[in-house]
């Protein structure tokens, strides 16, 4: 046998003994996730004309993109979703209070190692942090899955990325994700699965693996997977039943490409507008004046991200020219941040704390940029117009760099201890 993790998962979920890259299979996902765009999925589902969804237990719907509703249109969509989940007996519905869909999925035990999970959101790749094969799909095909329980998928080639060395001070998994984007480019993993290995990966907690698998999508990846290990086991203990299958790649698994990086000398990284792969070391972006800083999103809205920001902002003030928006990734992170005193520190520093959700990441609401403004965000995309005006600019960074920038009002040259 010579298969990668993705090939093994797709074979099992397609009822086949083996599958090979390039093959089109009909797969049966373990779970499917939709957020606010469930409103669009419902419309398509009605057009198909099926009466009942294939299995209400396998459908998870957290509302997060525009919460609370920012417009009458969104309010109507949310209402249609609330009615639909009752009609169909979908119990795993998380209303606007709960947080970002991917965080909610992982936190609440909806993701198990070895599962195939599809979601109507590109960053569904995040669940690779728990060794699942998960990927984004469109609303039309999600309606088809709701009706039939199956979907056509292409078996991807797999890229193996090995990260050795160690993070120097102030460098995080977000910097690694940006670094890899710079190296492989935004098309570097198109249609491919990515498997992460190496000493650095072994030492990254699930939170940081989440960031890495989340950003794998920005390289075009179908799946981003960190193989199961003790760290995975520790995280899922108490969250999921012990009925999952652990897959590992065969020693002679066939990879379409292999990369090996030693990141011992890697400094914090910045993605400059308007491309996610326009990545430079922090020093090359230093001095750029910032109008808004966003700390949050499915990429970097977890408790360790908020803690690190609080450590830097403790007894400091956000620069008077800067608006700092902080968005805890979920209700439980929000609560934990209150208990740990993080929010008090951030509020004293004059940050604005937003409710758990996607916030301004996709230009929906809560922090839209005006023409000519610049934003430094811990989010995942800096496309033209992403956060509002097409004449605004978005820079991407880690929460450490973002917190520091919020104080000095510009992208810092380095992130030495504050």
């Amino acid at each position, binding site marked *: 046998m010579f298969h990668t993790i993705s090939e093994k998962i797709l074979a099992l979920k397609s009822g086949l003994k083996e599958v090979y890259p390039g093959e*089109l299979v009909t797969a049966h996902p373990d779970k499917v996730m939709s957020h*606010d*765009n469930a*409103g*669009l999925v419902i*419309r*398509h589902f009605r*057009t*198909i*004309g*099926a009466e009942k969804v294939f299995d209400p237990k396998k459908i998870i719907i957290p509302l997060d*993109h*525009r919460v609370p509703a920012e*417009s009458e*249109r*969104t309010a109507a*969509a949310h209402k249609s979703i609330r009615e639909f989940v009752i009609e169909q007996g979908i119990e795993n519905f998380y209303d606007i209070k709960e947080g970002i869909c991917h965080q909610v999925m992982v936190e609440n035990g909806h993701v198990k190692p070895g599962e195939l999970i599809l*979601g*109507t*959101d*590109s960053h*569904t790749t995040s669940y690779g942090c728990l060794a699942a094969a998960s990927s*984004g*799909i*469109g*609303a*039309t*095909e999600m*309606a*088809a899955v709701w*009706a*039939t329980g199956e979907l*056509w998928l292409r078996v991807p080639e797999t890229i193996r990325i090995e990260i050795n060395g160690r993070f120097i001070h102030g460098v995080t998994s977000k910097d690694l994700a940006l670094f890899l984007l710079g190296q492989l480019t*935004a*098309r570097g993993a*198109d*249609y491919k699965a990515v498997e992460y290995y190496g000493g650095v990966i072994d030492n990254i907690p699930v939170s940081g693996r989440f960031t890495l698998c989340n950003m794998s999508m920005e390289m*075009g990846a*179908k799946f981003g997977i960190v193989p199961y290990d003790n760290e995975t086991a520790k995280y899922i203990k108490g969250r999921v039943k012990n009925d999952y299958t652990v897959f590992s790649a065969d020693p002679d698994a066939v990879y379409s490409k292999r990369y090996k990086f030693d990141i011992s000398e890697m400094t914090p990284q910045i993605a400059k507008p308007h*491309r996610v792969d326009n990545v430079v070391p922090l020093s090359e972006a230093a001095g750029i004046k910032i109008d808004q800083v966003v700390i949050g999103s499915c990429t970097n809205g977890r408790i360790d991200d908020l803690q690190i920001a609080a450590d830097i902002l403790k007894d400091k003030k956000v620069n008077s020219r800067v608006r700092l928006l902080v968005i805890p990734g979920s209700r439980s992170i929000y609560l934990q941040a209150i208990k740990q005193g993080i929010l008090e520190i951030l509020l004293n520093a004059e940050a604005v704390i937003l409710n758990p959700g996607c916030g301004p990441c*996709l*230009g*929906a609401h809560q922090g839209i940029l005006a023409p000519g403004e610049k934003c430094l965000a811990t989010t995942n*995309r800096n*496309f*033209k*117009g*992403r956060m509002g005006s*097409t004449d605004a600019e978005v820079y991407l960074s880690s929460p450490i760099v973002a917190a520091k920038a919020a104080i000095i009002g510009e992208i810092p040259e380095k992130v030495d201890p504050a």
Partner: protein
Amino acid sequence: MDKKLTGRVWVLGEDVDTDVIYPGKYLPILDPEEMAKHALEGLDVEFSNRLKAGDIIVAGMGFGCGSSREQAATCLKMAGVAAVIAGSFARIFFRNAVNQGLPLVQADLSGKLMDGDIVTIDFESNRVEYTGGEVEFPPLAESVKAILDAGGLIPAVREKLGLAT
């Protein structure tokens, strides 16, 4: 799906992302006709007004990178775009286009065409003909073709479930 398409082209660049094809602020729109009005708005707010039924988009590598929003494919189709030719497509955009019955052609025509040129796509011989040349493109998988022939995934699923009238 038509076996042959002839249309006027609009030439775009590389890595045309889903935010410029269909900005996030319009995601709450559910009416496909209304989505069409915002097609490619991130590149030019007037773009959708210039698109005519049967037009063909020609772009470089990485077309449709970014979000899973299928509106990026819907808005183009509803604005009259008959097909997209690109050096390569981002994964989810490819799926969304196929599932909504918008044909895609993977061919690198960068530098060979200008806005307003006429091209013919032949899905039987897998060739794109343009003034001064032609290129061959990899055929779509049979199962993908079947979805396009059905007019998209929804008609295909309705047929499969015996719900088609």
